[in-house]
């Protein structure tokens, strides 16, 4: 079982209690900014009058976790994708690769770290709900078992098909996410990415990386073999030359070398002409 959040866009009144609770829970400095930053992990954005929360989607197979060279980002068994600032070297591959554009950097710091929503992992481990869901006055953000939330989302859409767009965002996007969103207007108009692959992105690089051990073995044997063959070829040739010289005298051997060379260059250069 892994936990998640369900955000029902139609129930959100844009009060911003979630952002404030997030700041307090995670010891983040005020103010609540216009957009998510390394210091503001969640906001309620207004898109054409519609309220939509911005926060980490907590992918089931997170891109950020797969790209991080030092494993500073991990997906916990409970579900939240968390970040260990003590490991991070600041390569910013997570920021570059995240399909949702979630991780942010402390660009203003001389010793910067990444900032992103961690779904209040400390609270989750204590068996509590994420702070944003706890304070939400309308229940627009719900915390719970991700699969149960998916069923709830489906039930709401089925019950009120006129109220909702018939899509649960996050069910399959990027292979599925812990945060699910249902909405009354098309997701593209809410500023959400709608061109994402439906498969987990880490597969794209893993199918290359997983071949490396066998590649190293085959390629190494091939190169050593090639080295041996070409070296042996030259040895044999020298031995032949030495043999010829022994029988027929040095001068003839030299001619053979020249012949050999002429033939080689002919094979490369003059055949084409």
């Amino acid at each position, binding site marked *: 079982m892994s936990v998640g959040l369900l955000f029902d866009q139609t129930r959100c009144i844009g009060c911003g209690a979630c952002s404030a609770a997030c700041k307090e829970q995670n010891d983040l400095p005020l103010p609540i900014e216009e957009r998510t930053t390394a210091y503001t992990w969640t906001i309620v954005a207004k898109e054409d009058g519609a309220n939509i929360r911005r926060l980490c989607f907590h992918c089931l197979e997170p891109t950020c976790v*797969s790209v991080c060279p030092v494993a500073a980002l991990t997906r916990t068994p409970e579900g939240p994708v968390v970040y260990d600032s003590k490991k991070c070297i600041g390569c910013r591959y997570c920021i570059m690769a995240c399909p949702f554009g979630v991780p942010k950097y402390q660009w203003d710091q001389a010793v*910067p770290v990444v900032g992103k929503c961690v779904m209040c992992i400390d609270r989750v481990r204590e068996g509590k709900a994420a702070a944003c869901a706890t304070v939400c006055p309308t229940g627009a953000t719900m915390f719970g078992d991700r699969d149960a939330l998916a069923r709830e989302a489906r039930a709401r859409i089925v019950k009120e098909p006129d109220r909702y767009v018939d899509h649960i965002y996050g069910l399959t996007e990027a292979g599925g996410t812990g945060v699910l969103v249902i909405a009354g207007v098309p997701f593209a108009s809410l500023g959400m990415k709608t061109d994402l692959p439906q498969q987990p992105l880490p597969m794209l690089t893993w199918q290359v990386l997983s071949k490396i051990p066998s590649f190293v073995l085959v390629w190494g044997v091939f190169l050593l073999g090639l080295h041996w063959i070409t070296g042996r070829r030259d040895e044999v040739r020298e031995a032949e030359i030495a043999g010829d010289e022994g029988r027929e005298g040095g001068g003839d051997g030299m001619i053979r070398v020249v012949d050999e060379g002429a033939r080689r260059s002919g094979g*490369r250069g003059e055949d084409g002409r």
Partner: protein
Amino acid sequence: MSVRAAARRAEFRFGFYESLFGIVVALFALVSFVRYTRGLGATTNLSDEFPWGLWVGFDVLCGVGLAAGAFTLTAIVNIFNLRRFEPIVRPTVLTGFLGYVLVSVGLMFDLGQPWRIWHALIYWNPHSVMFEVAWCVMLYTAVLALEFVPVVFERLRLERPRRIFKMVSTPLVVAGVILSTLHQSSLGSLYLIVPSKLHPLWYTPMLPYLFLISAIAGGIAMTVLESYLSKRAFGRHLEMDLLEPLARGMVVALGVYGLLRIVILSRNGALAGLAHPGYEEGMFMIEFAIGVLVPVGLLIIDRVRTSPSGLIAASLCAVMGFVMNRLNISVTGMERASGVRYLPSWMEITVSLGLVALGFAAFALAVRYLPIFPEAAVRPVTQPGALPDRARARAALSPESET
């Protein structure tokens, strides 16, 4: 008069290039101070929307790619046993080594917390392309250092260690080729994870192959250019008898690369977009023309390829096209999805220029004090097997020079 004596005589001249070097290095030092005291935001035009810029696109992607001549040349000489190319191995390995050192220095600027770079040694994530690149680059820099250190031994007349290193040269070369094929291609794999961000003119599952092939071509082109520059600086002759066959290899690599890209683009439909060229299409066409069409077009003409100026012009195009390709992938192709336009700040440009300047200076110093070029070197005892090959090589070239 030996080349080194000539170089020494020019030592105290303080001309245009030396002044330029002084200014660039002074600015470089200034920007370094700002970078480490005020952070990346104060130094760069990077943002959450555009987290990778010039320092990744140029310093890392181009630095590593253009240093590929080292593994190509060592493979030609050691794996294929074409010993006649030996005279240009040393400068190429030196360029490679300096290239990788500069990439590491560049990372000291680009990483948010560079003092933690060693974390990749202890915190493993085998699922990360970056992790693999980090290890390969680290190991290959060590390999290049080991491949180069016999030159230093030779200079110091340390015969025994030099001979020991000669013995392990083949395993070193094999390790170097494996590591290079891995990370040269993996720099392309870095971008496999952003199918919805990188423009279809550059995104393809074939990126690792394209990066490897273009690095081989770019590495050869750099070898040609570096021969030319050392020729200019140290009054050496251009080894046309060696560079010309290498140029043939470059034509093959660029040809395969160009065809592959056209096939990929016609399959994913991006080629059709060229009919109505916008920003990305324009940049792609310039890149492809400079980097592939012009050099291939020039080099397939025998008269151009065998003339020093023709070869140099074609190689310069290939290198510029290579740089443009890497910048198009890391910058141009990522802009649309990011929603912002990125132009490097003057401080970012200063750091990149400073690295290039330091590279030139280090190369010049190494050439001055170490036996890099055969004329300058105290000729070592000819290795067994080298003589017949060289005789053959000389014979091989004689019909060529008659035509």
